[in-house]
């Protein structure tokens, strides 16, 4: 359903992505792991063109965009097939919780206000925030803000939701509620691509784990294979630092 072909991205002279090929099937939950600077976040941002790749092709749900020559309309169409959850939440701070979730529906998808409102309230209820509809982002906790972020992405009814280190900016005690919310989304069968450092969580929800290093995909496969029985030395090195020795005896 999602096809990335030979994605290259450089910032100035520094090549961050050196030719990434990745395919994601409908309903898959792909977790991207890797050390910082390996290009995980850049790859994620290339999928919805928040970063424009220098080269390669992105295809979502049969809609193909060539990064070399693409127009604004193509990028917009592609973005409308995706939702994104940001590390720093990035909720619209001049909008209430409800307005944050409605915004994309009303402005981008042109859904009538009443219907958008109903749908948004329904999603916020599911995510346990129906008491905070009229609050501004600055008035709720980080965990709640991130859950609104998830609701905002979910409301768009996208083909895929991209999660960019959704728990990295949170206090440790707030991580749980956000992971719980993401798990719920995963269980609904929505295709997701998640960049995270939470290995246990990755094992729990992922149907596929991708390990990246130095702008390339080193290894990918079932979570059990990649995390518990990595084939590549680089993956083992990385996991050794994150997991206690015993948990991946070979």
């Amino acid at each position: 359903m999602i096809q990335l072909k030979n994605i290259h991205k450089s910032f100035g002279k520094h090549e961050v992505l050196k030719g990434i090929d990745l395919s994601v099937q409908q309903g898959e939950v792909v977790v991207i792991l890797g050390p910082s600077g390996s290009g995980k976040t850049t790859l994620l941002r290339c999928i919805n063109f928040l970063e424009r790749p220098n080269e390669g092709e992105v295809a979502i749900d049969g809609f193909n965009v060539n990064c070399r020559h693409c127009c604004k309309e193509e990028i917009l169409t592609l973005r409308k097939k995706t939702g994104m959850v940001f590390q720093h939440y990035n909720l619209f701070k001049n909008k209430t919780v409800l307005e944050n979730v409605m915004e994309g529906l009303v402005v981008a998808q042109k859904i009538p206000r009443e219907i958008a409102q109903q749908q948004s309230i329904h999603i916020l209820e599911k995510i346990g925030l129906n008491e905070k509809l009229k609050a501004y982002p600055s008035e709720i906790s980080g965990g709640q803000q991130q859950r609104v972020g998830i609701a905002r992405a979910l409301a768009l009814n996208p083909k895929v939701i991209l999660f960019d280190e959704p728990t990295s900016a949170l206090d440790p005690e707030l991580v749980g509620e956000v992971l719980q919310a993401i798990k719920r989304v995963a269980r609904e069968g929505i295709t997701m691509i998640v960049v995270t450092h939470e290995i246990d969580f990755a094992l729990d929800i992922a149907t596929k784990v991708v390990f990246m290093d130095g702008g390339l995909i080193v290894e990918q496969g079932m979570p059990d294979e990649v995390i518990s029985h990595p084939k590549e030395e680089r993956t083992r090195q990385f996991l050794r630092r994150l997991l206690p020795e015993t948990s991946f005896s070979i």
Partner: protein
Amino acid sequence: MGIKIDYSFIFSALVQELKVLPLTLTITIVPLMFGLGIGIIIAIIRLRKIPVVDRIAAFYVSFVRGTPLLLHIMLIYFALPMAFDALALKYKWSLHSKDIPIIVFIFVAFSINAGAYMSEIIRSGILSVNYGQVEAAYSVGMTAPQAMRRIVLPQALAVNLPMLCSMFIALLQGSSLAFSISIVEVTGEANIYAAASFKFLEAFIAAAIIYWGMTILVERITSILEKRVQRYNRGGVT
């Protein structure tokens, strides 16, 4: 010789001058609105660095801020009729520059002036908005103009509310210069009303009370607005 002040004249001057207060407010608020529009356009042109237009915009801001408001009124008052007549001749309009109400010159001059100052206020406001807000807007499928209109500009204006208030006040005081091309607003009325009895001091004291009163009112309104935007503006990671 002590100063003798005719208090009752202050009062009657006040009543007289209040009659033209609507005119003073009109030549303040209308240019403020046009200035806001011009300011937003100029700010976006300069931030996007649109070739050529960007240079013109920078020149406009530099020139207008580098010359006094009184001069803008004079330049427009003398240049606009010439330009209008030239165009009227070329396109065979039946109108002549004599037919343009003088207040239009004031609107144009003040709007041009306000636009230049406003563009800098708005530019700094837009720059203060976290780029994550724009990315979030793109991520939900908004176009760049939609993100600007619905997310960035409201936040940019909210941040700079105190500066916009100052702009309003500066324009209000500046409106007294309209008398130089014989628009009888509050200051003008003070001049005319005092002329018969030579009680200029009293008339101008009355005018000062009006300007000051209006300024206080504007400040109050701003502080109410500020409280409203502060609800979301304070702190927070987003």
